[in-house]
């Protein structure tokens, strides 16, 4: 079963910025445990562009699809046998990257 793990940061109360080495080390462990599928940090939401081509012409909008204090800062995709395994990893990951996480299963 695959889970999308969203890393949520908060503009009012951002997580610390010195976490890269610890996250890299954690990723190594994810890989050796067979959980790692994908990981990636995201640029600031200001760098996002929203595209809507459901009408006659594509419409491009500068910025994220929803403006909010909390925003998606990065994602993991994990392979785990069940939610308990994913939640145990997520609890550890949240501490390591000093941010809130959302764990959501793929369909």
């Amino acid at each position: 079963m695959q889970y999308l793990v969203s890393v949520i940061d908060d503009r009012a109360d951002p997580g610390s910025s010195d976490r890269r080495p610890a996250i890299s080390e954690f990723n190594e462990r994810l890989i050796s445990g067979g959980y790692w599928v994908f990981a990636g940090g995201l640029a600031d939401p200001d760098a996002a562009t929203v595209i809507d081509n459901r009408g006659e012409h594509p419409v491009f909008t500068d910025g994220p699809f929803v403006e909010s204090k909390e925003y998606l800062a990065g994602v993991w995709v994990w392979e785990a046998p069940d939610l308990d395994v994913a939640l145990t990893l997520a609890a550890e990951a949240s501490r390591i990257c000093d941010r809130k996480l959302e764990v959501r299963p793929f369909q």
Partner: protein
Amino acid sequence: MSDVEDAIARAYRAEWAVIVAGLAGRFGDLDLAEESAAEAFATAVARWPSDGVPPKPGAWLMITATRKGIDRIRRENRRTEKHTEAQSMFDVNAESEPVGVIDDDRLRLIFTCCHPALAVESRLALTLRMVGGLTVAEIARAFLASESAIGQRITRAKAKIKAARIPYRVPSDDDLADRVTGVLTVLFLVFNEGYLATGADTDPVRPELTAEAIRLTRLVRMLLPEDGEVAGLLAMMLLSEARRTARIASTGQLVPLAEQDRGSWDAALIAEGHRLVRERLSAAAAGDAPGRYQILAAINAVHTSARESRDTDWSQVLALYDQLVNLDPSPIIALNRAIAVAELDGPGAALPIVDRLERDLAGYHSFHATRADLLRRLGRGEDARAAYGQAIDLAGNAAEIAYLTAKRDSLPS
């Protein structure tokens, strides 16, 4: 009730959770388990009156429910998605099983229903439905919610269990203590809602909820006999339940502990509760540090050991609250501790302790009720009247409101 109806009711009580849990393990699908179990009982209701009660009702029901489940899988999707899915979940379970500490499907079911990834209200509803066998209508009545709201809550919870793959197993040793605490929280909430029901226009006590909480806690105790907190929670429930009828006067007014007719307490429940507390006391003496439920049970045991209210060993109560405060420094526990201080050292000593809790507890009716009582005993009638008023405004239980109102109205003007 006829003999057959009686046999069906008894089988329902004894076997519902066994069957749902067994089928959930077999099919890996709570929905299918619940529906097949319900169908098996419906078949029993239709057939037993004419065919007679089978010699082993539990086995008959399990076989019937299993057949219904297999029929459903075949009917809904012949060897397609659902079947393979159910089959694969079953295989996963079979492989990952040795993790479990105790081998009982019902325990797996309880841990799944009380999973921390589900909202607390969902855990309550799901546990009462899947483990307790209460109908959606019964749960809705108990929690003053609409049937559709409860039905939806249960459906969503089952869907999440499936979509997020919440596992059907007893947690590993590392997680067990935390997860048991989660289960006990659910049982405690069910009991409390029965014991001090909210809603100004409803019965102040809902014995069907207290009874169900006790029944489920007995089950957990049977499955986890070594767990001290399970024993503590059960003891606390029994010692409270023993006083249930004495707590409400015929006028519908709450009767405080000190004024209860101790002769009308249930002696058998008290004896059972005291036995459990003694068992935990010897475990504590052997070095097994008691948790909050064991301490709360011990406090209840002190109260129920006193033949008359004035015989209550308040210093013992205070010592237990001190222990509890160490474990859980919450303002509500500090408030209850202050009540013991008032009995030992007088209301004048307790009032400043209570006043210090105002910032945290200003929205809690018991804070104002406790203050009102202390002010009344100190002869500060006007202040007491105001505090009773605030307590009445915040209280949700009909019997408690009646009691507080009577107290306020009896203040000398």
